[in-house]
């Protein structure tokens, strides 16, 4: 049940001098089960793009298909769509509102009109999935630490059992440890639930270790769309639009530039380590 974007355009404030084209002729196919990194600079249209995927924004031109149906159709079930395509916004902890964590996670499933038993089961599973222990369930969400709040907020979306999970800058404002934990959590969600994941970020370092496909956005257009290694081979073009290859790739390419015979297309620390050890053993 792929998502298909067909010539999607989105223009804000059309007809005034504040007219901005957030998306320009975007064509994408997002197949099931893929782990995708959506990269772009601030204002590149990545947030607009993901909001089109669950119908929060309507394209001003073109169509978005989910399960082969145009989601802009009048009779399309928007609620169903939003439970199928879960969207976790930036700073999701700012949207917590209930008196305790558990009820807040219940909010999503409750809106789907499920039975009380089912709602609570889903909330429990979701909280377990994101690694929040029972002791936090009945605390006020405002008493949790930053990383825990973020987990609770992500659980609030997972509890709707989406088949596609989109996370908009899930690591924004977290310390390195929190960042690592959230990224590992997302990887675990992908592996255990087998769902499609779209990870939105402006940092290649965030996504290099995890994703199998990278979509680079620039000025509302799809700039690159390929597997990580192929995307990172466009080092100069990426730098021109204000992005960078992952730090390890940068280091290795500089080594190669100094004349060391190393592979400069590596993207993870593990691969870089193997390359460097190989070089060390040869000497």
């Amino acid at each position: 049940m792929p998502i298909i974007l067909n010539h999607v355009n989105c223009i804000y404030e059309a007809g005034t001098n504040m007219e901005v084209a957030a998306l320009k002729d975007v064509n994408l196919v997002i197949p099931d089960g893929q782990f995708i990194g959506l990269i772009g600079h601030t204002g590149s249209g990545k947030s607009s793009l993901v909001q089109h995927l669950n119908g929060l924004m309507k394209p001003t031109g073109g169509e978005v298909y989910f399960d082969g149906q145009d989601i802009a159709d009048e009779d399309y079930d928007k609620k169903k769509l939003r439970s199928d395509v879960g969207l976790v916004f930036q700073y999701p902890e700012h949207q917590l509102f209930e008196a305790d964590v558990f009820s807040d996670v219940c909010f999503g499933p409750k809106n789907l009109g499920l039975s009380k038993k089912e709602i609570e089961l889903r909330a429990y599973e979701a909280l377990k999935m994101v690694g929040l222990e029972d002791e936090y369930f009945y605390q006020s969400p405002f008493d949790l630490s930053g990383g825990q709040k973020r987990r609770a907020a992500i659980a609030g979306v997972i509890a709707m059992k989406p088949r596609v999970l989109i996370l908009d800058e899930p690591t924004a404002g977290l310390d390195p440890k929190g960042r690592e934990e959230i990224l590992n959590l997302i990887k675990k969600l992908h592996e255990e639930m087998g769902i499609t994941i779209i990870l939105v970020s402006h940092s290649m370092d965030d996504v290099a270790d995890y994703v199998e496909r990278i979509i680079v956005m620039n000025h509302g257009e799809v700039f690159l769309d390929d597997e990580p290694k192929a995307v990172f081979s466009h080092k100069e073009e990426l730098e021109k639009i204000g992005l960078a290859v992952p730090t390890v790739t940068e280091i290795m390419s500089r080594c190669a530039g100094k004349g060391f015979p190393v592979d400069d297309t590596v993207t993870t620390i593990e691969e870089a380590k193997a390359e460097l050890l190989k070089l060390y053993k040869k000497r």
Partner: protein
Amino acid sequence: MLRDITLGQYYQADSPIHRMDARVKLIGTLVYIITLFLYKNLTIYLIALLFLGAVVKISKVPLSFILRGIKTIMILLVITAVFNMFLTPGEPIVSFWKFKLTWEGIANAFYLCIRLVFLIVGSSLMTLTTTPNQLTDGLESLLGPLKKIKVPVHEIAMMMSIALRFIPILLEETDKIMKAQMARGAEFDSGSLIKKVKALVPLLVPLFISAFRRANDLAMAMEARCYQGGEGRTKMKPLKYRKLDFGAFVVLGVYLAAAAVLGKLFPLNLIPL
């Protein structure tokens, strides 16, 4: 939906109206509002319409943009009109039960609606062409004499500029929170009244928390910069009248005189009273 609220919004453009001193625009808006309430006849509204039309044209703000503000007061307009039409005593045209539709009522409703619309359009034109900072600077300078009788003019102006500055921020925040809750299946525009009110809780709680957080941060940032009230404070951009502003005062004077004199001497009435 939230984008329809034009209150306190600024429309970036390069026009004589935009370049004008904020004090001129404040006085101009005041004069304009006074003329709207001077007399109750068509002449004055024709003159006001002409004046408003000219200013809108010069300001380069698209008409559709200005008229958005009216959409939000549409309900108020309709209610005012209906009440006036039926509850003003006078010559009845049609009557049923306790209500009488009168000529005087229709005229009253018409005048009131025109006044309200002109009022909104005129004042939103001022905020659209003046940045909140200019606006409060102008206000502070105009109210300056009140300092002598211990009115905290600077503090009032500061509070106003903070309030104005926060309108777009909080609107954006509201939009964001609404979207985030909609992504969790919340619905804000359907169901019974009770359901709608209940649906506001997931919106208002995060919004209030965010407003308090922002207020806290701002207070901290102001204190970190050693902010203190008006005494002895200088301005980065002191207000200064220029040629354009004196020209605008002349135009304003002519408009006021024309409205006062023509409205009195040649009153066009909507109905033969």
